């Protein structure tokens, strides 16, 4: 790790002001990605702006037909939340499937989606549920938020405040864990909205989370495991590495989609 300056602002305005004036400054949430990258000397921020002291960024609340989760809310708190567990159980289970106990106790929703690791779980939940990302400047629809490998619509100095998840009719998440890292080798989030519309988000494919039009079409016609499993995706666009070939990843999308639907149907 290289030396850096540490700041701990008490509110969001102070945090954004700090980030605005510090050239190579970075926000620090749970540190589960950022600190590791710094230790490996892959990241070299001049300043860390620790969001940990900003109370308004944490917490889970109902907001009409949505659940709003603060950016700094830990994975463990989402996994254990009665509110989330009752109204969007798939999201609670997704949070509970991230990493291990220590990671879940420290890692945050905002940190996960700001980082947008192509194998992370939360992006699938946010995109699959059609959530809205609320930042220090604006509201961004999930469809516009994730823009590529480790890329998002966030601008320099822009902070995520919360994410608003519309409560669906039903939803399910099935994750095929990478045997080594236990990130998603493939994770599929399926959601049937109150309107009946179906959204399917896939993570782990290699190039960032995406919606599968084929699966959405098939599930709109018949929201059943069999319908999902029958969809055969082309391997084009999936990445291959020492853990999985593109063909295997494409195959797993169908299998996990079927399992996610089964989970959604309970």
């Amino acid at each position, binding site marked *: *790790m*290289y030396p850096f300056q540490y700041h701990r602002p008490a509110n969001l305005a102070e945090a954004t002001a700090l980030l605005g004036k510090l050239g190579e400054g970075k926000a620090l949430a749970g540190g589960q990605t950022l600190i590791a990258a710094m230790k*490996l000397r892959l990241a070299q921020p001049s300043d860390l702006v620790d969001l940990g002291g900003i109370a308004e960024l944490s917490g889970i609340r109902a907001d009409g037909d949505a659940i709003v989760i603060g950016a700094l809310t830990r994975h463990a708190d989402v996994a254990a939340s009665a509110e989330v567990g009752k109204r969007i159980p798939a999201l609670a289970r997704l949070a509970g499937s991230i990493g291990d106990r220590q990671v879940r106790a420290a890692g945050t929703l905002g940190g996960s989606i700001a980082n947008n690791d192509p194998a992370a779980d939360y992006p699938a939940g946010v995109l699959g549920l059609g959530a809205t990302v609320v930042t220090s400047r604006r509201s961004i629809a999930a469809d516009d938020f994730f823009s590529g490998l480790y890329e998002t619509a966030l601008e320099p100095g822009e902070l995520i405040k919360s994410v608003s998840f519309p409560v669906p009719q039903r939803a399910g998440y099935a994750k*095929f864990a990478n*045997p*080594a*890292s236990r*990130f998603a080798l493939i994770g599929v989030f399926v959601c049937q909205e109150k309107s009946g519309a179906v959204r399917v988000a896939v993570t782990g494919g290699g190039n960032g989370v995406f919606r599968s039009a084929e699966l959405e079409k098939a599930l709109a016609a018949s929201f059943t495991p069999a319908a999902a499993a029958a969809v055969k995706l082309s391997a084009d666009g999936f990445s291959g590495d*020492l*853990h*999985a*070939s593109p063909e*295997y990843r494409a*195959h*797993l999308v169908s*299998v996990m989609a079927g399992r996610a639907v089964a989970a959604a149907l309970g």
Partner: protein
Amino acid sequence: MGANIANGIGASALRKEDQRFLTGAGNYTDDINIPGQTYACFLRSPHAHAAIRKIDTRAAAAAPGVVAIFTGEDLAEAKVGGLPCGWLITDVNGQPMKEPPHPLLAQGKARHVGDQVAVVIAETYLQAKDAAELIEVDYEVLDAAVDVATATQPGQPAVHDIAPDNVCYVWGHGDKAAVDKAFAAAAHVTTLEFRNNRLIPNAIEPRAAVAQYSRSEDAYTLHVANQNPHVERLLMTAFVLGLPEHKVRVIAPDVGGGFGSKIFLYAEETVITWAAKRVNRPIKWTAERSESFLADAHGRDHATRAELALDKDGKFLAMRVHTKANLGAYLSTFASSVPTILYATLLAGQYATPAIYAEVTGVFTNTAPVDAYRGAGRPEATFTVERLVSAAALEMGIDQAEIRRRNFITSFPYATPVGLTYDTGNYEATLAAAMKIADVAGFPARREEAKKRGKLRGLGYSCYIEACGLAPSNVAGALGARAGLFEAGEIRVHPTGSVTVFTGSHSHGQGHETTFAQVVAERLGIPFENVDVVHGDTGRIPFGMGTYGSRSLAVGGTAIMKALDKVIDKGRKIAAHLLEAADSDIVFEDGNFKVAGTDKQVAFGQVAFSAYVPHNYPLDRLEPGLDETAFYDPTNFTYPAGSHICEVEIDPETGVVRVVGYTASDDFGNVINPMIVEGQVHGGLAQGIGQALLEQAVYDPDSGQLLTGSYGDYAMPRADDLPNFKVDTQVTPCTHNPLGVKGCGEAGAIGSPPAVISAVIDALKELGVRDMAMPATPHRVWQAIQSARA
């Protein structure tokens, strides 16, 4: 055998060492800090193969806190030698193996990613690391020879000039002519080609060392995470640094796991020992985890073609094995012996195969050195034998247990065609026990039930044998060993009758402080609490060979038993004097010296007291004191053996293999502490199942970059990857050591990989799958199912 006292032999005594380990009071190398200490950081090659044209250290030397920087050139100038290899292999033509230099810091060339190129010593570790980044190395990147199967082909780059075809040796073992003849007459031949996957040891404590030079004593002290401090000292002083051995004290304090990887003499601790005098400051180095991946000696990495010849009834006639063994970029301390002496000699397994021939090609590649890792040669041999047997049974339609029974060795001693003589064993007994515990009879019903859920179940067998307590020294010497293989033990009885045991064995997780104390307490009839075990410090213990190859109890425990005999012998003479009887009339029972047939007796403690306060003592014929040392050189290996049965369930949609049942019935001879033995088996099984399903070190075949350089890509087994193990022991006592013990540290890792792989194949056989590479990852299993269905 049998416990005469609390926590004696056979008791599951709680481990003495756990109090300090579990409460954070362990004293590991990185816990040791010496006033004035500096820190070393090694600059490592980012290339698998590169000529070093120039190293510019000027900017680094000017960086804050830097005390010194050394490169290979500095070491050459100081006439510092290279690392030695401890075993000379003689090839099929009677020529010695190729032994290229193994410099402490690269000289002229870097030969694997992670090869040490320079060392920076600074006031803090971060300063050393920052400065290392400022060293400018002008590399000319060369093509790399990476894969063991292809590195010997024409046109591959040579790792070392003295081995242009990258061959270190071609070594043969066994009667080739007899084997070829038997194959010609065989009713059936089973042939397999496979890789034994390359593993990275991953001890929880990374390698570490603190080196100190004292000007007042003109002597060195090295704390190092190591499994055999005397061997470390001998190799370092006599072969590399040319220091007087008695001026170097090596201490291996608490060590957090080794699995073989801490047997070896490495460059890092050698460099900082040398440099400690140069800079006249203590120097600490602790590996970062990424360095452990790159620069600890790896394990396995064989490419093998193996054939088994059978008669029409499934009796084994002969076995023929050709193996290419990856040695990596340099010969690590015991690298040459692992795929030869410790491999080919085990190819008889538990079977009376009359003729066996093995040919092993040791291959240099631009990868990290490969050396002993839990099992060292024996897991590779067991995989070869047991996969051949399982495949032959499948091909010939013979039941898996039946083919093994038909070929078991049943009378002992038994001389194998590959040079070992098994003293004892009962292979039927472990197989029968394992089958009963694993409920093999109920398997068809479980398979049917799984099928209803869309899952495929399979059962796999492995009847392994291993050889522990490498011995005797003179035989090993004739085979090329450059070190002795005895062990030493000292029993120091204190005036009040408590005992300190000094052993040459080293505990890095095995619980010697408990097991050895049980042996001593039992033999002397004194409380377990009154016995302490000291190990790991050349300044305190007699010259010992350390711990590897499951040798500690069989060899080190025997040395202790022999020292105990001497203590009791002397005690008998003291007691005879005290009791006014003849020496020959004294018997030692339950901690008391007694005049046989009378009620006259004196307690062990009283005898100890008079040995040190010799007021009433036969000073005319006996020295005072009660402190005895024994060295023991075993007459034979010990031969732990057992039967493992693995049950897997496969999800054909994803290829995921779950181990749903694992039974191990092992014969370790007599068991001193069943709990510790069970723990050793569990750990070994986790590593063996890890090898079979999860772990593999992968280098990019072109660039030689390690693709599995972190836990993000190298899959270590986790608790939820493993079932609850069912373990059992059967006992045939070893015939040639007084405790009748054989060793248990590696058995789990040796026996399990073929059991798992055969279970996977058994599950998939109905789809036509006949082969499965390790590790059987979901991806691989799915691909096998796809190609079988295609």
